[in-house]
């Protein structure tokens, strides 16, 4: 029981660090091969027309969210932002798998080695991670609120 409550306490932090790792890595590997990345999303059947904008917007968002994840006080909302970004990536992959005639990948670095189904599972994993972390933060907050209320009523 003690182990679980400890896990509950650390889970949001661990999730935040994993997201920082993922986003920083993905953003840096995209920016390091910026030209290649722009070419790849130019090729993407989904986003070709917006390649110029997205080529810098996506890594920028990844870095900003990674930065915000450092702060504990912002943890809930930065995890929320990370969740939204991951949902969008997942939706992108899903549309690509189902509606596109060909599948280029532009995730950057080692993530490019994943095949599309592995990618989908990987992304859903991160979505679930953010989701659970947010619930745990909320339940802790609520417990604290209840605790402080009882403390107040006692005094």
């Amino acid at each position, binding site marked *: 029981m003690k182990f679980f409550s400890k896990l509950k306490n650390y889970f949001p932090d661990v999730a935040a660090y994993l997201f920082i790792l993922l986003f920083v890595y993905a953003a840096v590997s995209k920016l390091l091969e910026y030209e290649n990345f*722009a*070419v790849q*999303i*130019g*090729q993407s*059947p*989904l*986003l*070709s*027309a*917006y*390649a*110029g904008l997205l080529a810098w917007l996506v890594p920028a968002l990844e870095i900003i969210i990674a930065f915000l994840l450092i702060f504990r006080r912002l943890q809930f909302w930065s995890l*929320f932002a990370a*969740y*939204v970004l991951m*949902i*969008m990536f997942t*939706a*992108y992959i899903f*549309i690509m798998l189902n*509606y596109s*005639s*060909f599948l*280029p990948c532009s995730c950057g670095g080692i993530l490019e080695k994943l095949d599309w189904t592995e990618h989908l599972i990987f992304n859903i994993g991160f979505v679930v991670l953010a*989701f659970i972390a*947010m*619930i745990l933060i*909320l*339940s802790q*907050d*609520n417990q604290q609120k209840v605790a402080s209320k009882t403390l107040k009523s006692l005094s």
Partner: protein
Amino acid sequence: MKIKRFFLLIGLTSILSIGIVWLLYVSSERIMQQENPFIRRFPPGVVEYMEQIDLGYNSYYFAGYSKGMLYLGNYTAPLHLYQIDSSFQHSKEIRIMPERSEFSFRSVLVRVEDSDFFLFDGSVPCIYSGSVSDWKAYLIPDTIPYFTLIEPMEKNSFVLRSNAASTGRNTIGLLELGAQPNFNLLEEILLIQKGGDGVFDTDGFLNFNSSLNKIIYLYRYRNGYIIADDKGNVEQRVKTIDTIQQAQIKVAQIGNVRKMAAPPVSVHNYMTSYKHLLFIDSNLKGKYDSNKAWEISSTLDVYDLKNSRYLFSFYIEKYMGIRMSQMFVTDSHIFALVDTQLVKYGVKNNLQSELRN
């Protein structure tokens, strides 16, 4: 925040963000196909290199394809044809025998259409026709106008490009031979642009698409092509994805001679069509085209002639730094003349499914 409210928030945001990606997808598709901002699309493995043979000369051109045989004409040996089957196993040299050859041929073009062939020379001007069974060419006795480009349409009718006698401008014309010979120039097909002289700025490539019965004319120095029916009525003026709308040419008049005063910017290098597809060898690099691929190959843009949409692009590799000069498309193969090489590609994936429709 209450857990319940959290679930509501996360549910709505998830739906919203999926919706945004979906919208991006739909609008990007529309932009790409209708008002392409010069972004090419290279689906992988559209053409697959198969083999190539050395022809020994770089002066060959495609004269036609009939019954599994590819016919190559040669600009420097105008009465010779090279016949090769599509598996590159059997080849032979053919010599065309014109019944009268007192003309001094200057720009001979041979076309093989099924079991007939034509021999054109627009600078004489003359047209011969004959059968592939004996390769004897008979002079067509009708009066033929001078022409600079020609394509056979149905039997006895041709579309050609001529210089209008009064103005010297490039003009498309329809030539009818046989029982009721007729020739008329269609002044309204090629549009002269502001400041253009009607010769250089309207220069381009002429093609007749026999499966759609359409005349196609692609400008060399501007991003447009024209689709007209076989009577010469213009049906559509279409923009290619390339960006140059105004021909970038400077013309100088030196006495009687007009010359290019500055090197022109070519937009298109070559064009061919097969079934409902138009293949354009573009000379301009797209927004996100890879530099490396651009350097080592020619870029072919494929358009759908039925709805005049850009479909996708593919590469045909250069040979010893020299780009493809001509291309010929069949149901299963693409043949390209690259310098001295005849290169064969297999048709795959997206292109294969387009050609199957």
